[in-house]
């Protein structure tokens, strides 16, 4: 094609004159897909760069040591030796507490962070009034999240009680590096000087507290190399060691996962756009038959004809993709404002040329390859058409075995798979996605064939003429039943699947949260405080729903093999062929309980609940029930022996059942439940769930409890539920936005699909008008045809989306699936409505044209 005279290209340009707008409209089908890809790729590149730039500030140091219990002696001596070598260390102790402001009598659950004077090494903590952070260390001062001030009705200057300690609020926090807005919703942060922690008397036996030591390494030291000599030792001591590079990696991994998901939606939008391009170009090709026949008469070869129109389509495809890329860049600049609350860093937005280029290339290619399929038919236009015009469909018919057509089909499939491979998280996912798309297209084609067949067989002569005519349009030569059903159905399928997935994922939160029986949780209750607390709750007229003993423990060995033997690897290792027990699960501190009956938020999925005998008599090897998720992480099964280290005592247990736990239900839930005799007598704390019907009474109860037992923390679940609801509604807003976005993609596709049939219908309509048909009759014919097409497309799309949604929800998100029939039917109805509307809009031409002008064209 390249070898053609230049004049052929200028002919292509001039010939496109009036068609440019139309062609651009068809090509705009891909714009939104390109926009999504560009926006997501650019934005995640921005985030990843920002994480790299800010990772030290995110962590506050170059490396951190974390432990949920006081650091072991080995760690303390390591810290001494580090200090001795001139490495600066800062300490942060984080623990929950009830915060009380005596002036307003406000009470609120909060996260206290006791920090040493040199915290943080990197990044700035911005306060309001400005510049107060350095003053924190000067006395019993506190700097708090603004949400704490709001909820306690407090202000800077107020006194703040934490346990037995009293502090002065000297400022509120405006910005702390590395903290997302969402984190503070559950428990506002309170910074106090580390040396005043003791005054609170909150760190008693078994209290939840996390200790962190941050280290600042001399400039130029590689943190990963630096930790190598002591990393293994620290991890064996249950001290979690993280370097700044690891933080960077885990943050970017999370962002990449998220952008992969949205990227898939973008890909799907692009694919849908491709189908729009194909049907639009098909309509375009039909309009060009006469011109092509003339060109062939005038000596144009089939290659020249193809080159002219491929050049036009490619140029418009690039314009469509460029428009999409520009839109994508605009969205990229808006995203950080929308997502502020979800992001732990300040994102510096800048143009990412590689993302823009990828979007343009992928979009342009998809547009071209989808346009090529119908364009190839132009090769078959015979010059004889200038003398004797056949129907469009007959002129454009291609043989199934046509080599270029097979080639285009093959590259189309390969392109889809290739793009899916670059987007999906795993190869398997990419292939399943491509296969699902293929199945959807085949199913739609089959249902279209079925409709044509049914229309032919089912047509009854007693039906009114207009209905017969409309139904007959579905199977007559040159019908577009398959093309329209494919575009409509695929659009409905994608939009509806997205909705189903969103609905099923978010449903879990809302359903579970409303089912919760209690609304206030008290924890860190010492053994001698349980009775007192119980009586406070009951005497205030509230119900105690559940009291569960909590015993902290760690895994000592599994099936006789100790954790230290099992978990020698602490560095990031190349993937091993054999699955490994998850290190986090092996090392974590378990807060377990014991009881004789399963809780209402859990169901036994394997094995049997504790036998009567094991409930009564203590045995050498006690029985436990494990949550099924943690069992998978630990690679254990029924009958396996886990030995627990319960405050220095080894307790062997056998797994006799696995439970599925509804974690989203706000109730005390546990990974491990013991048969009571095993743990009875072990030092424990309690957690208590109470039901307080009247919301204002919650604050009163919390205050009463904190006055009597300052170490007992409580969380108002109603407040958390509100927060979760808020997050869920924001997430669903985001997903709805994506669904709406797909719908927006589907509309130009619908236009293209209907336009593909429009021309033939206008011709017929005008002929009928000449023969005396009224506007009403023609409208009814169009109505009959398009409503059947819309109905078929919508319904097939709906059925397919239920299958697709089920597969995605079940196998990718691994949650149960329940199809909400009403909204999905609604989507199908919208598709039918849109088809009718667009069909009738296309039919406007019939009414506009006078029979004579149209006949001239015929």
């Amino acid at each position, binding site marked *: 094609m390249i070898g053609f005279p230049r004049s052929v290209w200028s002919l292509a340009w001039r010939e496109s004159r009036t068609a440019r707008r139309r062609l651009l409209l068809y090509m705009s089908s891909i714009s939104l897909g390109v926009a999504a890809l560009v926006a997501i790729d650019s934005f995640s590149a921005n985030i990843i760069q920002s994480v790299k730039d800010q990772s030290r500030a995110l962590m506050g140091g170059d490396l951190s040591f974390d432990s949920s219990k006081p650091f072991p002696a080995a760690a303390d001596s390591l810290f001494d030796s580090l200090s001795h070598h001139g490495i600066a260390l800062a300490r942060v102790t984080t623990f929950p507490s009830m915060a009380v402001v005596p002036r307003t009598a406000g009470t609120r659950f909060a996260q206290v962070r006791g920090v040493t004077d040199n915290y943080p090494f990197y990044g700035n903590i911005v306060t309001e009034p400005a510049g107060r952070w350095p003053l924190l260390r000067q006395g019993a001062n506190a700097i708090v999240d603004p949400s704490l001030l709001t909820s306690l009705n407090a202000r800077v200057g107020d006194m703040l009680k934490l346990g037995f300690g009293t502090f002065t609020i000297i400022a509120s926090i405006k910005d702390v590096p590395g903290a997302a807005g969402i984190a503070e919703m559950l428990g506002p942060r309170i910074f106090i000087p580390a040396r005043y922690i003791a005054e609170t008397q909150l760190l008693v036996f078994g209290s939840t507290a996390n200790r962190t030591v941050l280290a600042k390494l001399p400039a130029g030291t590689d943190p990963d190399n630096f930790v190598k000599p002591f990393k293994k030792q620290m991890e064996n001591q249950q001290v979690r060691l993280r370097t700044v590079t690891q933080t960077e990696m885990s943050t970017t991994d999370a962002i990449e996962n998220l952008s992969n998901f949205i990227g898939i939606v973008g890909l799907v939008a692009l694919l849908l756009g491709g189908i729009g391009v194909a049907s639009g170009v098909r309509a375009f090709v039909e309009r060009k038959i006469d011109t092509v026949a003339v060109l062939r008469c005038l000596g*144009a070869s089939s290659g020249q004809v193809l080159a002219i129109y491929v050049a036009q389509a490619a140029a418009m495809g690039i314009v469509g993709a460029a428009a999409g890329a520009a839109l994508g860049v605009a969205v990229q600049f808006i995203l950080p404002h929308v997502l502020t609350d979800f992001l732990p860093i300040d994102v510096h937005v800048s143009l990412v040329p590689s993302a823009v280029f990828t979007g343009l290339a992928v979009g342009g290619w998809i547009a071209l390859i989808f346009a090529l399929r119908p364009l190839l038919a132009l090769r078959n236009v015979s010059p004889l058409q200038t003398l004797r015009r056949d129907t469009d469909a007959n002129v454009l018919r291609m043989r199934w075995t046509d080599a270029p057509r097979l080639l285009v089909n093959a590259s189309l499939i390969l392109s889809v798979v290739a793009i899916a491979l670059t987007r999906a998280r795993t190869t398997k996912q990419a292939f399943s996605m491509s296969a699902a798309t293929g199945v959807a297209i085949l199913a739609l084609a089959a249902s279209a064939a079925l409709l044509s067949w049914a229309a032919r067989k089912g047509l009854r002569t007693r039906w009114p003429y207009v209905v017969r005519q409309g139904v007959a349009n579905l199977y007559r030569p040159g019908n577009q039943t398959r093309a329209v059903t494919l575009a409509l159905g695929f659009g409905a399928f994608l939009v509806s699947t997205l909705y189903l997935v969103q609905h099923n994922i978010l449903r879990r939160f809302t359903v579970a949260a409303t089912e919760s029986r209690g609304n206030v949780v008290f924890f860190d209750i010492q053994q001698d405080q349980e009775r007192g607390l119980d009586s406070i709750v009951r005497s205030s007229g509230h119900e105690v729903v559940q009291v569960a003993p909590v015993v902290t423990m760690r895994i000592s060995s599994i099936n006789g093999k100790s954790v230290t033997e099992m978990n020698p690897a602490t560095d990031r290792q190349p993937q091993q062929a054999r699955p490994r027990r998850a290190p986090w699960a092996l090392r974590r501190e378990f807060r377990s309980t014991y009881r004789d009956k399963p809780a209402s938020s859990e169901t036994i999925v394997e094995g049997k609940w504790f036998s009567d005998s094991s409930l009564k008599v203590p045995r050498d090897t006690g029985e436990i029930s494990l949550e099924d998720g943690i069992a998978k992480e630990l690679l254990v099964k029924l009958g396996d022996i886990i030995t627990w280290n319960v405050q220095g005592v080894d307790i062997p247990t056998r797994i006799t059942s696995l439970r599925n736990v509804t974690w989203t239900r706000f109730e005390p839930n546990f990974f491990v439940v013991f048969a009571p005799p095993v743990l009875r007598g072990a030092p424990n704390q309690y957690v208590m769930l109470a039901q307080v019907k009247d919301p204002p009474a919650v604050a009163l109860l919390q205050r009463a409890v904190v006055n009597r037992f300052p170490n007992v923390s409580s969380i108002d679940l109603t407040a958390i539920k509100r927060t979760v609801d808020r997050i869920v509604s924001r997430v669903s807003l985001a997903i709805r936005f994506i669904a709406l976005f797909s719908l927006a993609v589907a509309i130009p596709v619908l236009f293209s699909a209907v336009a593909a049939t429009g021309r033939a219908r206008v011709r017929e309509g005008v002929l009928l008008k000449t023969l005396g048909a009224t506007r009403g009759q023609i409208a009814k014919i169009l109505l009959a045809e398009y409503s059947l097409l819309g109905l078929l497309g919508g319904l097939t799309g709906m059925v397919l989306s239920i299958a697709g949604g089920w597969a995605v929800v079940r196998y990718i998100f691994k949650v149960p699936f329940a199809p909400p029939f009403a909204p999905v039917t609604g989507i199908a109805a919208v598709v039918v409505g849109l088809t009718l509307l667009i069909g009738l809009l296309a039919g406007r031409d019939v009414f506009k044209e006078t029979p004579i002008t149209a006949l001239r064209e015929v």
Partner: protein
Amino acid sequence: MLIARDVTKEYMSGEQKIAVLRDVSFAIQQGDFVAIVGPSGSGKTTLLGLLAGLDTPTRGTVVLDDSDLTTLSENDRARLRGEKVGFVFQSFQLIPTLTAQENVQVPLELRGTAGAADRARELIDRVGLTGRGHHFPTQLSGGEQQRVAIARAFANSPKILFADEPTGNLDNATGHRIFELLQSLNSEGGSTVVLVTHDISLASRASRIIRLLDGAVVEDSGAPSAKFA
């Protein structure tokens, strides 16, 4: 110049074979002005399509300027059309998206001929449309559109021009003027003209008349001297 030898064209209509042309044979000399006449359905247009290489016969051969069209591929026939053949259609068949002058330029541009614009302008002047070259087809009358079509047909100085009912969509007076234009181009440039028409009064002005009926030649004013046996 143009030889048709036992040309037969058959179509399948369902199970039935229909012969549209049966054993048509004749030869046309360079510079002839031939009219093919006959009633509707007699096979005139089919014959024109075969003679111009737009289609191939079921049997028989068509030789155009020493090239046997039946042995050429579709693209070779296209190339031959571009070099040696001009067309004028009943419905003008101008490309609606191009201006009059650009329409005339098309055959030149497809071949990559230099100076296409000047040559097109010259032809536009020659057909009496000076100053109208920038108009689009819809902005021209039927007669004017047919003049543009004729200018386009002569753009490559074709050896032979095929015209399918060129006056069929025009009023009587305009039709006669168009016919005169074709005649003058024929006599000045020496191009052979093969015209299909059912207008006997126009046909009578041609140098030779071939009459078709039911797919067979029933009268040929150029025969027997030119008739190919």
